[in-house]
């Protein structure tokens, strides 16, 4: 997590990461829906919450010390990390004989939830930038 540096503090980086993870999640869920009738297809999902939690500076987690001003901050790479993919839990009861683990209802629910969370993050980022602009133009 980058240290707050005045104008563009850490929240914006968190929102940026959230948007990127949510769009990766949308792509993964869309692939699951497209493959809802593909034999032996295993559903995937992105561990969005876990990846976002890792961006929060956890209590007791040590930051890498920089002994020279020219050193690159170690946390900067977190935002560039690849979206963590994992195999989605298969439905508890399935009457399908084709080995497909896509639960269409659950996926559609997750899709709407993900889209809503994406729009929320976008809205927050927009308001944050709007607030900054307001400060820059002196509230005129």
């Amino acid at each position: 997590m980058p240290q707050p540096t005045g104008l563009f503090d850490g929240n914006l980086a968190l929102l940026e990461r959230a948007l990127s993870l949510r769009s990766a999640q949308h792509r993964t869920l869309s692939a699951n829906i497209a493959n809802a009738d593909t034999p032996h297809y295993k559903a995937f999902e992105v561990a969005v919450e876990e990846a976002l939690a890792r961006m929060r500076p956890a209590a007791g987690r040590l930051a890498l010390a920089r002994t020279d001003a020219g050193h690159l901050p170690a946390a900067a790479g977190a935002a560039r990390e690849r979206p963590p993919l994992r195999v989605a839990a298969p439905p508890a009861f399935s009457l399908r004989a084709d080995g497909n683990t896509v639960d269409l209802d659950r996926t559609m629910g997750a899709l709407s939830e993900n889209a809503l969370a994406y729009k929320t993050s976008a809205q927050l980022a927009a308001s944050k930038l709007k607030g900054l602009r307001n400060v820059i133009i002196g509230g005129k």
Partner: protein
Amino acid sequence: MDLYDAMRTSASGLSAQRLRINLISANLANVHTTRTPEGGPYRRKEVVFQAAGGAFGDALRRAAAGGPPGEVRPLKIVEDVRPPVLKYDPGHPDADENGYVALPHVNVMEEMVNLMSATRSYEANLNAVRAARDMALKALEIGK
């Protein structure tokens, strides 16, 4: 960009489900067809789907790139292996010497259930496209 990829993936799902619906229509239309270019009664057709990148090389490349699974594509169209249904109808021009006509093994109920399932899957893909569009539009509002 992830959202464009998502739309492409959903579009592949739409096209796959449409192919499935077309085959179901063909099965229903040919429920009484006794003559085909290949000879014999019509055989019920069904499509088998495959996740794109199912081949080893594709899967390896995808895993290296860290990308999620990809689009769906029709692998092949298979013909039903169940034998034709024999119906006693001596007046039929295609009846055999015992008066039985070989009719396609098409069960209208089965086709209708398949049709409903395909329609639902089609709608699910359509909703995914809509959600991707809404998300992209919302992202465009950042910085407005």
